[in-house]
């Protein structure tokens, strides 16, 4: 049977250096990003501040953010770039200006790259198509959060292996590693990006959560992704326990018994010490302490939560350098 897939046969092209989804990232591209991250981290301040001097980067945020926004902004500034922040609450977006027109305005003001956070899945694709600029997806709806997955990868490589090991990757770098991602998978862009990125490097990803928050459709995210609904069983097999927040703002009428959820899925000290005493504990934030994670685990020795934030700054620096075709990417992006 002839399969008709002419829709979209005329694909728009996205600017080099865009990061819209991890789905289109090759292992060698991931490796190059990690290498540049390591290189930038070692550079003296002054040298680093010269890399993007005179360049302009816009941060366009339609949703609130602490970590992602601040780390992108600090990363851009540390590289010498000029940044401007536009948020939906204090701009013409409130007056009904479209994403396209907002993007074109930023471009006309000199932005060479736009970092976008948006509540609509796929919004970064629209912005990249309409502006022709490199766009970094800083989280779009329930779709993806690619820079988060990359910083999670670097955190895993650094903590479970070594800083040296985190300088480059192959499709076997995470072989033998099992990562449990637990909680509100349905609404989580972090879960999607990690579940698509980590298996590219050989990891096995166990998704864990109740059916309401983790439909069977998730299995088709790609190879290396499995579903284990029993949290204890998932934990016992994993070297990394990545916990997710229940996204109340996206539940859309879905009803959840929080007491039952806590009993089944909370990562607490007792669970951790009995089932995964050496596992790395991760959380993309924001955490709701006492719900998906207990205080003692969040602040305990197995927690890598603060390091994740730290790696966020480093990885996002490399992504900005890549987006603007500078640093080690200068020759790669002709």
């Amino acid at each position, binding site marked *: 049977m002839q399969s008709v897939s002419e*829709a*979209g046969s005329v694909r728009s092209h996205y600017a080099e250096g865009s990061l819209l989804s991890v*789905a289109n990232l090759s292992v060698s591209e991931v490796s190059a990003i990690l290498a540049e991250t390591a290189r930038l981290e070692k550079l003296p301040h002054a040298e680093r501040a010269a890399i993007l001097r005179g360049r302009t980067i816009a941060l366009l945020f339609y949703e609130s953010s602490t970590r992602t926004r601040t780390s992108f902004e600090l990363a851009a500034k540390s590289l010498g770039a000029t940044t401007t922040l536009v948020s939906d609450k204090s701009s013409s977006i409130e007056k009904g200006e479209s994403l396209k027109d907002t993007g074109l305005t930023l471009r006309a003001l000199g932005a060479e790259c736009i970092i976008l956070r948006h509540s*609509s899945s*796929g919004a970064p694709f629209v912005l990249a198509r309409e502006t022709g600029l490199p766009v970094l997806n800083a989280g779009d709806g329930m779709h993806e959060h690619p820079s988060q997955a990359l910083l999670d990868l670097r955190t895993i490589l650094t903590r479970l292996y070594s800083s040296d090991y985190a300088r480059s990757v192959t499709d076997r770098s995470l072989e033998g590693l099992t990562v449990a991602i637990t909680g509100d998978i349905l609404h989580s862009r972090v879960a999607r990006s990690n579940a698509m990125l980590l298996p590219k490097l050989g990891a096995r990803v166990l998704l864990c959560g109740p059916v309401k928050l983790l439909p069977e459709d998730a299995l088709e995210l790609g190879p290396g992704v499995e579903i284990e609904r029993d949290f204890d069983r998932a934990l016992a097999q994993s070297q990394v326990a990545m916990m997710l927040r229940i996204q109340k703002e996206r539940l859309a009428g879905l009803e959840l018994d929080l007491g039952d959820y806590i009993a089944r899925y909370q990562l607490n000290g007792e669970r951790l010490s009995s089932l995964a005493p050496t596992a790395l504990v991760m959380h993309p934030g924001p955490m709701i302490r006492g719900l998906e994670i207990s205080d003692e685990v969040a602040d305990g020795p197995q927690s890598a939560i603060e390091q994740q934030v730290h790696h966020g700054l480093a990885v996002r620096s490399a992504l900005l350098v890549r987006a603007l075709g500078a640093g080690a990417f200068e020759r790669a992006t002709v």
Partner: protein
Amino acid sequence: MSEILILNGRLVDPANGIDAPRDLLLRDGRVAAVESPGTFVGAEAAEVVDAAGLIVAPGLIDVHVHLREPGQIYKETIVTGTAAAAAGGYTSVVAMPNTVPVNDTVAKLEWMLDPARGSVVKLFAMPAATIGSMGAELTDFDALRAAGAVGFTDDGKPVLEDHVMRAALVAAARAEVPVSQHAEDTRLTGGCSMNAGPVAFRLGLRGMPVEAEARIVERDIQLLREIERSEGLRPHLHVQHVSTSRAIDAIRQARREGLHVTCEIAPHHFALTEEAVGDYDTHAKMNPPLRAEADRARMIAALVDGTADCIATDHAPHAAFEKRQEFDRAPNGITGLETALGLALRLLHRGQGLSLSRIIELMSTTPAAITSLAGRGTLATGHFADVVLFDAGAEWTFDATASRSKSRNTPFDGAPMLGKVRYTICEGRIVYRS
């Protein structure tokens, strides 16, 4: 007296069981004669059309189009929409009522059907089933029927409440027209922008489950049973743009029981799957959404085995700025009048071996029957001279920029088509030629 003589063509007229060389004489908007080749040798006419190598068929009829006038003429007008229809081989179209304001009174219906609107082809309309299409209070079916309504629908929305749909079916049965239902249980589709399933999950989009369509179809069929039993009426339910196997199953079963159920399938539902959404291509966003491959294959099977009665485009023009935005914010719908025949011939005739006669049945004969368009859907002598002439073997590529529609929102830009319309003749007037 205007005459057109169509010579040397192959007439495909399923209503009369004809698929053979025939010459046609059209006079004063009617078919004056259908004769074997050679009969008209030496005859004179104002216009002689050499149809050698062409199929001559009753003009196509689309029971489901959105012409956007009044109220949204930046998307389409009756003039531009019907010009697109003519280019697609259509001689009659049925306008849906979701204009601004909604077509729910005799005055609005008459305004729409007034020749002053400039329709290029024959324009019919289905007014709203409920006032304002709000789903609560029925419009005046008898008065609207007398003013020309060929059915009733709240298209774009379902008639959701059981008792309202029941009343609509009863009133429509008395007026001897169908209720044309947009089958969507909107209680299951809030905030959804594509088909539910693995693709929606991966893209982080909320998905419409197939049950949302099937449940309303099943509910409506249950109402038909109940009305036949208790009222002694025989209501006609027409199910719009069927997209799921489960709805096809329900329709097939209802037909076996002898209930009066017809249905239409849109070209995009037999041509494309949810994979066409790609990286958030809003030209692949419509309602009902593109479904999974198994459902697409089932739509083809239904067109082949006869469960599906007709092809209707759900031509739904939108301005570029409306489609060029975030996927979940973009409006539903695509244009379809100029690509329907090309897709049907390529995918169903060439792809599935469906006869040209069956294609014409799906696109003209049966649509005319569903909406009781007297004198149309066939080229028997005395009927309206609504004719399409097309080269069934011509391969071409659709270019959206060349569309007669005011809008360009199609997933078929650059897509291969089979069968090129050469002439469209509506009531004896040539309204399109290429």
